[in-house]
């Protein structure tokens, strides 16, 4: 096992709070929802497992047993509650889940009735190939054909959510989100200069 502190990205001897915070962040980052329709989902699962192990180990070290997060994580199974699929569709779904994109595509081309489910599955295949524009268009078609289906809507929302998350992460990472910009600094300097001149001094002698 790798050093659990390293896995969680914290210094050795971090406090329980720090461990929890780091753990929470990482679980969010590698949550299966983030990697749904992504060819790397298995890898993310492994990573999550490693994080869970590290967390469990550290928590045991701190003699605290049973964490709310772990219970949560154990319930991240694959929830397969598909309703009235024809057998061909469920075969295609199986193939997509197992990463046999080519097989899924061949099967999909055999279907003659292009209903909402067909477009949805086509969208999932496009997602796996990294063809996001085609994917969104296909899933959109599926949503329009069957507006009541929450699974289709969910898939669209997840794609949009990934974008928001990416940008939010970048935003958080910036160093000075709230610092003064150049304009404000100039204003301050000029104001200070005025004040100094009022009192007979001078801060910037050319103004």
């Amino acid at each position, binding site marked *: 096992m790798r050093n659990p502190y390293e896995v969680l990205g914290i210094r050795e001897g971090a406090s329980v709070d720090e461990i929890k915070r780091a753990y929470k962040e990482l679980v969010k980052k590698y949550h299966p929802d983030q*990697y749904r329709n992504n060819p*790397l989902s298995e*890898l993310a699962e492994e990573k999550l497992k490693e994080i869970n192990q590290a967390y469990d180990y550290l928590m045991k070290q701190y003699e605290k047993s049973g964490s709310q997060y772990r219970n949560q994580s154990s319930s991240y199974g694959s929830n397969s509650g598909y309703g009235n699929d024809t057998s061909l569709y469920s075969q295609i779904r199986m193939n997509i889940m197992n990463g046999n994109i080519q097989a899924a595509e061949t099967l999909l081309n055999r279907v003659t009735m292009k209903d909402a489910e067909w477009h949805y599955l086509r969208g999932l295949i496009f997602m796996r190939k990294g063809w996001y524009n085609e994917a969104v268009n296909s899933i959109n078609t599926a949503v329009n054909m069957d507006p009541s289906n929450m699974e289709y809507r969910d898939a669209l929302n997840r794609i949009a959510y990934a974008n928001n998350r990416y940008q939010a*992460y970048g935003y958080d*990472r910036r160093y000075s989100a709230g610092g003064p910009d150049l304009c404000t600094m100039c204003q301050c300097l000029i104001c200070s200069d005025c004040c100094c001149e009022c009192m007979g001094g001078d801060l910037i002698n050319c103004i």
Partner: protein
Amino acid sequence: MFGYILPDKGEMKIKEYELFRAYYCGVCKSMGKSFGPLCRFALNYDSVFLGMLLSSINKESVSLKKEPCIANPLKRKWVVKNSNSVDFSADINIILTYYKFKDDWTDEKSYLAKLGQIVISPGYKRALNCSKEAESHIKKSLEKLHALESQRCSSMDIAADPFGELIKGIISIGCNWDNDKKKEAVEWLGYNIGKWIYIIDAFDDIEKDIEKNSYNPLLLQYMYKDEEVNEFKNRIRDEVRFNLIHTLAQAASAFELLDMNNKSIIENILYLGMDKKTKSVLEGRSCNKDEKSL
């Protein structure tokens, strides 16, 4: 490649910036050493990124040395030495530049391109010997790309696919594999970066391609019809942005699964630099002036 992959310099720590610059100089010097000083003009940021990414994934222990440079003989700068990844990236850069000149010559009959091709061809032959596998992969991908262009493919996803595969293949060839799972993540990272480069370049070239009546998948996909260029751009901007950002989000999801050196610099590039570039190209503020000199 095109030079779209840059760090957001203002958000870097000084040590990160200096290391990035050392890689920059490393790729440049490697090109000069292997292919002659003229080839160094072909240097661009994408190949610096490629060199650094590979070197970080391979966890190379590179050495840094202070050396003078032709561009600035008085100031000695840090240079990355003894890195196979950097040398590999220099080879790739030469091969890609050679093909770019070749295309420009066949497409536009630009004499400058022919001249470039002649200057670079001894370097190209040498690079070919070092990385045969990479060269044949590049050649194959570019053939697919050109085939789609001549079919006037009207889907950005399909048109960008060969370029995604090109970058994916290059990165995959440049990595030392110890673990198949990691390979998947690295390849997904490469594919998405390649796709991003292709699409952002297509958007950046809209004006030029309208003028010259050249192929551009965006013009076909969104059915450009003699409208004002800016109107057309306004019409498609949101959708293109959505795709570009999603491509980056996917690349980032792959990056998060990798264990490598220099994580903070690569993170800066993926989350900040490329996001910033996406914005500046889409808003039409692709101002090269403050980016060229590092």
